[in-house]
């Protein structure tokens, strides 16, 4: 979806203006990505501290995946930057994470064994996408011409409680 298409939706253009952050594909920028998104969204008083924590974690997970995908696609210092785009309007935050990574099929990810199964302890990874799904109100994993766009929506007041 392009910026101008967004502008035609139900919210006024003035409140839908976008903040865009381009970051080197390195783990040490994650704290900055969290700071920016939470800093922007905290300007909307409808968002509680708890909801800002949800946002911070989901954004961090998506950025982590973007950075890792990017480094797999272009190992070392040659990896291009990742981009975080965020806008807030009337109690809703939308965040997109763009990468130039390898792409993936989120439906093909195998679920973990149930937590009561001792084999659960064999899995240290694989909680990022589940957390994103649990913490956001909506998420889309869109293939782009260069990699993946993870587009998340966060309502200040959740319609549903996590999954």
């Amino acid at each position: 979806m392009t910026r101008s298409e967004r502008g035609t939706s139900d919210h006024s253009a003035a409140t839908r203006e976008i903040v865009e952050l381009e970051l080197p594909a390195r783990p040490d920028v994650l704290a900055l990505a969290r700071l920016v998104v939470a800093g922007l969204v905290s300007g909307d008083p409808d968002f509680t501290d708890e909801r800002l924590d949800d946002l911070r974690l989901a954004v961090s997970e998506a950025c982590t995946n973007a950075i890792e995908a990017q480094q797999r696609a272009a190992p070392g210092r040659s990896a291009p930057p990742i981009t975080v785009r965020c806008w807030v309007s009337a109690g809703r935050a939308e965040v997109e994470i763009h990468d130039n990574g390898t792409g993936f099929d989120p439906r093909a990810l195998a679920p973990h064994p149930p937590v009561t199964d001792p084999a659960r302890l064999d899995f240290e990874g694989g909680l990022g996408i589940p957390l994103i799904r649990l913490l956001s109100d909506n998420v889309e994993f869109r293939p782009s011409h260069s990699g993946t766009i993870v587009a998340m929506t966060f309502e200040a007041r959740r319609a549903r409680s996590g999954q």
Partner: protein
Amino acid sequence: MDLRLDVSERDGWAVLAVGGEVDVATAPRLREKLIELVNDGHHQIVVDLGAVEFLDSTGLGVLVGALKRVRTHDGDLALVCTESRVLKIFEITGLTKVFAIHGSVDEAVAAG
């Protein structure tokens, strides 16, 4: 960057107090410290998350891996966590059923 790790002992348990932000940038240091403790013969470990301001899935994974490691030595790993922002992450991922989570180090050691 901003991760603090402090080791102490209490009644035969190794207590690892973690502070700051645990994400994919800092989790390797947490993992190394836990492996080091196990390699040094500490198989009863309390990880005190009281001063943790941020914890991501990598951090959860490190704790799962450490639990598995102490269990293979017939040991145990207990967590101390009271902050609702951190507790919530264990709850929504179901990991409250995997870890023993206590309100204080004293409680964790007494329960162990």
